[in-house]
């Protein structure tokens, strides 16, 4: 691992930056095609009920109106549920949330489609809606689906009763986290183009091109092989473009087939907020038994999630939260129940962290409450229990290598001068100051529950002129995947990175590589690159040897040059042409899948994920006694990422994720009025601005993972996971009240300071 690479480990600039700073990058919203028409959904404006009549005539009299499509126009199956088949493409006859799409209007222009969609008149028989987890749980009839439970996961290890009996103290607490809207800046959008062969081509802002391929084929009733899905540059996603694009693309595809013209569909912002998925709100109960010395002995944890109207990705969010429930600590006896409940609200699904930030909010608030009870410093308590190499996780998975949890804790402790800040606050008449810590882990890739989808490929093709095309199957949603892929491929092949063009993900180019999620791009694509390069190497070396009259063993390809016994003899351009005229194979498919995981889903025991990333954040806050406003002055963020392929890009991920965490902790408050989102744009849903953010200091801990490419693990999601918990811990420290519910709005903070309870 100590080898110096030309690109890997260097902060090379983004390969796609020029188009982005000049405005030339063409996002889906920027595409205009000849003969293109527009589709727009019309949707339920009641939270729960049954459609009794649809009157399209007011819409049909609009200029530019072309037609309406709804459930009866679907040639294939009216089903887009990504894991559980509970979600129709068009509601029929039940509607389960405000935003449940009933059909689409197709029109000559975008504004005509949007206007007409608003004019479709729907009559309903209304049912009693359910909005909260507790009401959903308590319901004895009128279920939203067959039952109100979307899914459940559990972990049972050891015997909690024995553990509690041995404990000196048993401590219980409840926690709550709220919805979070992705608010990617680029709205959801796609264009569907009908093809002569009866197939369809889709372009769009899509994290998971293979999900879209499957959904479109299913809805249209055509083979997947004639559905081509191409990813356009993604203007932010954060999980929000995992499953939702399947709905948009299938709807646009229906219209494209019906009218035999390209169809564009882009959501306006208010509808994007009302119709698409969000982060699951959790309510969490902890009961933990500890020894007086601070050793965790037993935990009983209940996680309850508001799934909204359909299951979408709740199954895997619930799985992930159950596995991460007690955090990066050793716990001999544990029982976890994680349950997602249906409600008549917009769906909740994938959002950066995927249940981990919520689980972490629970265990890290709990650790501080335990520390407080025992009179132990929060850092000390964590260090007494943290997972180290050789330890067993809460699912009894033995961790051998690349376990950097402890180092992330000690490095933020030292960099933040924890001891002095924790003990000496700088309170004045206006401000209370505090400091808080939160540690976390994150299982890489899809884990045991998603193992069947956890393989991915790349195709590397060398051209006669020495240029190299690289196709991959996941996504660059802004995080810089194109750049790190270029870096890894250039070093793997020993060539200059300028030769490499990374092609837009396209279902025709690479076999189904699963979803572009779970921070899996570097690991999956990187390992597939290694595989492709290893397969190309003998071809390149044999040809070079033949060309230079030597044997393959004495050939080395490095820095774009061909060496024989370390003497420079030729270059990659000449070799590429030689390969071509020799009729050699010049392309290779590289493939990698996560090794088989031994896991018992009934007990929740075994290898839940093949490896974990670790992160610890320390937050330093100031709380205004008069207004209740919280200012995050600084966050120290230590991340064990195995190996940083591009340190500056990685810092960017940490800074961005941390800032989203600040928003989730403090200002991003979601409000509904009987299922209608009130906070449906930026004037009411408050994202952090440049004026709100303090400093973020990233500390990289490189603890190489042998199965990661060049030692790397995922970073995209770990970046956000501990932030909100660290902030809540810091605010609790500042005001001397345990703050167990986010967002920490000024009202809540002021009430806590002044001793009012909610």
């Amino acid at each position: 691992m100590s080898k110096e690479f030309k690109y890997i480990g260097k902060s090379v600039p983004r390969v796609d930056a020029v188009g982005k700073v000049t405005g030339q990058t063409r996002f889906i919203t920027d595409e205009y095609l000849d003969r293109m028409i527009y589709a727009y959904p019309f949707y339920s404006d009641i939270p729960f009920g049954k459609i009794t009549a649809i009157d399209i005539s007011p819409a049909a009299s609009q200029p530019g109106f072309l037609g309406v499509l709804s459930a009866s126009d679907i040639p294939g199956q009216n089903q887009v549920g990504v894991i559980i088949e509970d979600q129709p493409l068009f509601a029929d006859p039940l509607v389960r949330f405000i935003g449940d799409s009933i059909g689409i209007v197709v029109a000559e222009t975008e504004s005509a489609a949007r206007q007409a969609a608003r004019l479709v008149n729907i009559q309903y028989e209304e049912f009693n809606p359910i909005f909260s987890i507790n009401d959903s749980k308590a319901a004895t009839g009128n279920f939203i689906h067959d039952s109100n439970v979307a899914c459940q996961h559990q972990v049972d290890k050891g015997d909690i009763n024995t553990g509690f009996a041995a404990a000196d103290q048993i401590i219980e607490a409840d926690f709550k986290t709220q919805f979070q809207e992705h608010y990617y800046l680029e709205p959801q959008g796609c264009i569907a183009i009908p093809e002569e062969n009866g197939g369809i081509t889709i372009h769009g802002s899509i994290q998971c091109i293979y999900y879209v391929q499957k959904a479109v084929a299913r809805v249209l009733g055509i083979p997947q092989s004639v559905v081509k899905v191409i990813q356009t540059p993604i203007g932010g996603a954060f999980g929000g473009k995992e499953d939702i694009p399947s709905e948009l693309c299938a709807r646009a595809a229906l219209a494209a087939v019906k009218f035999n013209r390209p169809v564009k569909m882009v959501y306006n912002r208010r509808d994007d907020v009302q119709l698409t998925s969000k982060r699951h709100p959790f309510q969490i109960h902890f009961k933990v038994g500890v020894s007086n010395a601070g050793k965790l002995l037993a935990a009983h944890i209940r996680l309850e999630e508001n799934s909204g109207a359909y299951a979408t990705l709740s199954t895997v969010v619930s799985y992930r939260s159950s596995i991460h429930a007690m955090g990066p600590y050793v716990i001999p006896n544990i029982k976890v129940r994680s349950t997602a409940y249906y409600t008549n609200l917009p769906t909740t699904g994938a959002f950066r962290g995927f249940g981990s930030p919520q689980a972490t909010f629970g265990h890290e608030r709990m650790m501080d409450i335990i520390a407080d009870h025992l009179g132990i410093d929060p850092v000390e308590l964590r260090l007494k229990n943290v997972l180290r190499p050789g330890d067993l996780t809460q699912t009894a998975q033995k961790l051998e290598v690349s376990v950097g949890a402890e180092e992330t804790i000690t490095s933020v402790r030292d960099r933040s001068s924890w001891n002095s800040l924790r003990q000496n606050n700088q309170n004045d008449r206006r401000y209370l100051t505090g400091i808080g810590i939160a540690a976390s882990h994150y299982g890489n890739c899809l884990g045991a529950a998603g193992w069947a989808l956890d393989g991915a490929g790349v195709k590397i093709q060398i051209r006669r002129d020495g240029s190299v095309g690289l196709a991959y199957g996941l996504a660059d949603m802004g995080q810089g995947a194109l750049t790190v892929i270029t870096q890894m491929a250039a070093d793997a092949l020993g060539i200059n990175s300028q030769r490499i063009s990374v092609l837009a993900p396209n279902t025709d180019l690479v076999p189904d590589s699963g979803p572009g999620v779970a921070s899996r791009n570097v690991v999956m694509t990187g390992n597939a690159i290694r595989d492709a390069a290893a397969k190309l190497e003998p071809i390149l070396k044999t040809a070079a040897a033949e060309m230079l009259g030597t044997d393959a063993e004495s050939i080395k390809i490095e820095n774009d040059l061909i060496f024989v016994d370390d003497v420079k003899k030729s270059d990659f351009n000449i070799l590429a042409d030689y390969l071509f005229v020799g009729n050699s194979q010049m392309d290779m498919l590289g493939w990698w899948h996560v090794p088989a995981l031994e896991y018992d889903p009934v007990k929740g025991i075994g290898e839940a994920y093949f490896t974990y990333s670790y992160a610890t954040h320390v937050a330093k806050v100031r709380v205004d006694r008069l207004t209740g406003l919280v200012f995050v002055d600084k966050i120290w963020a230590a991340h064990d990422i195995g190996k940083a392929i591009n340190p500056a890009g990685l810092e960017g991920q940490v800074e961005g994720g941390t800032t989203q965490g600040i928003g989730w902790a403090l200002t991003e408050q979601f409000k509904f009025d009987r299922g209608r989102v009130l906070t449906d744009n930026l004037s009411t849903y408050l994202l952090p601005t440049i004026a709100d953010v303090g400093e973020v200091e990233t500390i990289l801990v490189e603890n190489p993972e042998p199965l990661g490419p060049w030692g790397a693990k995922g970073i995209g999601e770990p970046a956000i996971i501990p932030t909100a918990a660290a902030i809540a811990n810091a605010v609790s420290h500042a005001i001397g009240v345990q703050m167990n519910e986010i967002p920490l709005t000024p009202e809540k903070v002021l009430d806590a300071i002044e001793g009012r309870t909610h």
Partner: protein
Amino acid sequence: MLYVENVETFDLSVTINGMEIKRTVPTHLRLLDFLRDDLRLTGAKEVCGEGECGACTVIMDGETVNSCLILAVEAHGTNIQTIEGVTPAEGLTDLQQAFIDKHSVQCGYCIPGMILSAEQVQCDCENPDRETVKQGLAGNICRCTGYKKILDAVEKDGE
């Protein structure tokens, strides 16, 4: 463009990126839609459509404005620069280069608006400090970067 019958129209004359443009436009057309849909100057983006995000920023008579809040007819007789016009024919502005060098770009959707606002900050103040930059960019939302590297770029370039 809105598809409505009997719309009132207006003969608009405006200078955009140095070119004199004359078009007959509906009076209710937003400047943002005129730039994007009619002129295909798509660097300005629509994100919130209510003046809160800055992604639709353009420069009008030397001041940054949110083009989603302005009607095309209000631009009559003005001089407008979009990101396409600010970018030199060859190469990049110093600020655009600084955004690349400082790794300030992620998904890029906010970036054209951010760069125009940042150009304005530097135009108003030759050597802006961090607080000045923060004030100048407070109307531009970025959901990806956490702003730190954007601050670095605008400050560094101002040094």
